[in-house]
């Protein structure tokens, strides 16, 4: 089964890139593949260049030096990156020891400072807690603290704030913005929350069925979305004000990865489809500077 079909992405130092798209379209797999975290059964083609060095196929030792230190990832599922049998202080401490070489009281102090920065009160006591003693959102913030522990150059934040309420979410995103201003850390923000993406990134890539279908500056995406899938996403959003209306999902279902339609993958669900859409996957074309769309009718 093929999960990704030629993803071309570039993230510049200091840039914040948003990545949105339907569930299962490959947003997480893209980065797991790039960091060599998919396991032996995955086959990966293409290049992953970090300041010109190719990471794809790089020796394990080199990848291990990059992971956490140069490129850190906040994983989507707490249970896939927090170990339930260790106290969070130990897990955070390990990251600090490994990436920053801290020991003893310096390590303890830094661990507390990180918990404090992600808005967890009473950090000293909390370091002794196990993940099951924390709420879902607290675990998510522990993972954020762990990702920040290595002071990475690039942070891949996969749904970093979905378990957080709006006030703490705003506080965490403000913290990430602050770190980016201070250190010019680049960030890839993967999120289903289009408001979060709008407020925290400069540019957004919209993915569908393992491909990038639209790549544009943030304002363009919301004001003049060009791909029918992007428009469908925006139309499905509920409002906070006004009369409640029935939500409008995009008609149809996502194609099976092993069974993609021959032309545009979105064609079977697209209300602007013409016959030519079924012939070949549409190439990405430049509509305006920095605005690329893979749709022949855009």
């Amino acid at each position, binding site marked *: 089964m093929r999960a990704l079909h030629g993803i071309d992405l570039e993230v510049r130092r200091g840039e914040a890139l948003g990545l*949105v798209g*339907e*569930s*299962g379209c490959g947003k*997480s797999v893209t980065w797991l593949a790039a960091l060599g975290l998919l396991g032996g059964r995955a086959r990966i083609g293409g290049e992953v260049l970090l300041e010109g060095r190719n990471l794809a196929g790089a020796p394990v030792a080199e990848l291990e030096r990059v992971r956490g230190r140069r490129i850190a990832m906040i994983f*989507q*599922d*707490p*249970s*896939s990156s927090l170990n339930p049998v260790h106290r969070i202080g130990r897990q955070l401490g390990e990251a600090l020891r490994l990436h920053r070489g801290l020991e003893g009281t310096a390590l303890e102090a830094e661990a507390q400072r990180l918990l404090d920065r992600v*808005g967890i*009160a*009473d950090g*000293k*006591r909390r*370091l*002794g*807690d196990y993940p099951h*003693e*924390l*709420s*879902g*959102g*607290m675990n998510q*913030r522990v993972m954020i603290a762990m990702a920040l522990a290595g002071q990475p150059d690039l942070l891949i934040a996969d*749904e970093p704030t*979905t*378990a*957080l*309420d*709006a*006030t*703490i*979410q*705003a506080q965490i995103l403000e913290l990430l913005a602050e770190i980016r201003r201070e250190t010019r850390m680049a960030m890839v923000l993967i999120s*289903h*929350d*289009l408001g*979060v*993406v*709008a*407020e*925290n990134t400069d540019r957004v890539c919209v993915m569908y069925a393992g491909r990038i279908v639209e790549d544009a500056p943030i304002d363009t995406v*919301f004001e003049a979305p060009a791909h029918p899938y992007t428009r*469908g*996403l925006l139309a*499905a*959003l*509920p*409002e*906070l*004000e006004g009369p*409640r209306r*029935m*939500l*409008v*999902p995009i008609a149809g*279902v996502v194609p*099976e990865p*092993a069974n993609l339609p021959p032309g545009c993958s979105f064609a079977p669900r697209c209300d602007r489809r013409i016959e030519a859409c079924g012939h070949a996957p549409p190439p990405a074309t430049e509509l305006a500077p920095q605005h690329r769309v893979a749709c022949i009718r855009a």
Partner: protein
Amino acid sequence: MTALLEVSNLARTYDVRRGRWPFARLATLHAVDGVSFELPAGRTLGLVGESGCGKTTTAKLVLGLLPASGGEVRVGGEALPAAHSPHWRALRRRMQMVYQDPLGALDRRLSVGRQVMEPLVIHGAGSTAERRDKALAMLDAVGLAQHHFDRFPHELSGGQRQRIVLARALILDPQLLVCDEPISALDVSIQAQVVNLLLALQQKLGLAYLFISHDLRMVRQVSHEVAVMYLGRIVEQGDPDRLFATPAHPYTQALVSAIPTHGRARKRRIVLPGEPPNPVDRPAGCAFHPRCPHAVERCRIETPALRLLADGRRAACHLAEQIA
């Protein structure tokens, strides 16, 4: 008429150590501290609030998955039977929960299909073929395809896993579904699809939902009533439209002002000063007072009760009338 679910004065504490050392002094953490609400059949109560304020704990208490330290839960007018008793098991069939962390809720070694069918197997419902058909129909209802039936949880995306959990919870035709962040891992189109499904099931089967979410837009979309929690207590409760349009409690005001928006410029965000609350050292008086922009002397001393305001909603704030 008695409500399907009546919760009165529910409380749950944890004994925790003050420091990291084994001999450190014990302290009491009030995860849920006197929560009351009613949920009639066929209705939805949205539960929102600060991360760590006790929403998941409340959900687990309601289902008897966690013993309460105080208060009472009544289902259909009767007190919740002791956990793991035969009566409780029978009741649990009608009350299902969708957990916050889908990977943690799924068994990694079992295929998707087996997990969705599992509740039917446990309760001995249907023949093997019927179970399979029902599971496939359920997968379809949550927007998954036939080919997902034989896959394993780690081979699925976050949103796909969440829908498996939802399918498994719905397969027994429950009367009450407690949903802890059921849709936050889904893309907006599938969120819309799942929410429409939940609403359709409610209309058809009269399901009641306790709907926990940080997505206030979605909460408004599905709820008949909303309760806002802060540090283990309900601080505001009422009609969703009114509550989100003109929040009465200062915490709700801050929460609503922080909702990220796209397009139209947002109203000014109310930034809460000070530390996030520590449930071990609950501030005296109104627990929100150290961060509240409106706090007066009285707030530091007297704990505000959740009281009825003129417009029919409830708020636990001494100054609710002045600042709304």
